[in-house]
């Protein structure tokens, strides 16, 4: 696959993700979440507006809104995958992107399970790093493998997860044996 083809594939994932996000969203929350994503209101204002139109606990409201916001962030990242980006940064590392009171500490075990499920195609066994088109990303978000998975092949992979992507340079990906140097 050429850099340009990979770039287009990642854009297709972004488009599909945006459509899926819109389909699953409570319509009454959409304009509020749009304002949240656009940085037009703080969390206090957003919670107040959301609670007025969507009957749910604060935890559930936060979950819906923050999941949408994290998805929007990831979709923006996927949309930035130009041929040059995938050539110079061919892989992603799974890293903690947000603090949690009680962080889930099973991501290495999940990585192992997802890697085994996909034959470690384009993925490291010793580090949470994989090529941008590795099937391990889809496996991490696959509800048939992980009960709390969302069905995304991009962060957030699981309910309430703060794990996200950090780009990995071609030099580092070569050191890890993922690409030729």
């Amino acid at each position, binding site marked *: 696959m050429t850099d340009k083809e990979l770039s287009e594939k990642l854009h297709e994932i972004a488009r599909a993700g945006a459509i899926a996000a819109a389909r699953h969203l409570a319509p009454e929350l959409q304009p509020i979440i749009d304002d949240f*994503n*656009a*940085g*037009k*209101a*703080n*969390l*206090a*204002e957003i*919670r*107040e507006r959301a*609670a*007025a139109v969507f009957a749910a606990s*604060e935890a559930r409201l936060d979950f819906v809104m*923050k999941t949408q*916001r*994290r998805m*929007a*962030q990831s979709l*923006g*990242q996927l*949309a*930035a*995958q*130009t*041929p*040059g*980006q995938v*050539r*110079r*940064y061919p892989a992603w590392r799974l*890293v*903690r*992107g*947000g*603090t949690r*009171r009680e962080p889930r500490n099973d991501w290495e075990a999940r990585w192992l399970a997802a890697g085994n499920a996909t034959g470690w195609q384009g993925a490291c066994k010793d580090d949470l790093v994989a090529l941008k088109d590795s099937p391990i990303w889809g496996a991490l978000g696959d509800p048939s493998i992980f009960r709390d998975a969302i069905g995304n092949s991009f962060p957030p992979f699981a309910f309430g997860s*703060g794990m*996200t992507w*950090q*780009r990995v340079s071609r030099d580092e990906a070569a050191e890890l044996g993922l690409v030729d140097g």
Partner: protein
Amino acid sequence: MADMSVNIKTPQLDGIIERLDPGARAELHREIAAEISETVRDHLRSYALSHHKRATELGARPTGNLEDAKVEAFSDSDGATVTVAALGIRRALGPLEIRPKNKQALTIPVAAISYGRSVAYLKAHGIDVFRPKGKDYLAYKENPKSQFSTVIYILARRATLKHEPDLLPRKEELAANALEAARDYIMEGNAA
């Protein structure tokens, strides 16, 4: 949202860009915008992980305003733009004065219960928030029969958030990364 211009013009680049047709110029700008957006995204993530001082002090859950900020890249044959959608991001460029919108005073949270929650939200959830006579704060009673109340918001006509130059990457870093993206584009033979 914040505006920050980064000038990456160099005589060599200018000469090459001038020879590009509009389509190639748009591709080059797209590469630069993508590089800047990724640089900003990486920076915000690492900044946010180490800057939860206020929430930590109050024993509250961080709002995630920065770590989940949406960063978008736009470009055409004329140039490239990257937007960062995060409240208060303008602090990166200088002190930011905030004033109340559609109300008399800002309500600055000073307790875990009020952090990330508005007065109306707390009242809607059965918390009796009140302003003691003559005081510039709002309080509530954990136990309605108690004579003691807890201060949960400070009222202020305005507040100034201090300049946080480290909130965004330095201009020099952005310029260097943008230049690297441009060089890579050209080295790949796209400017031939």
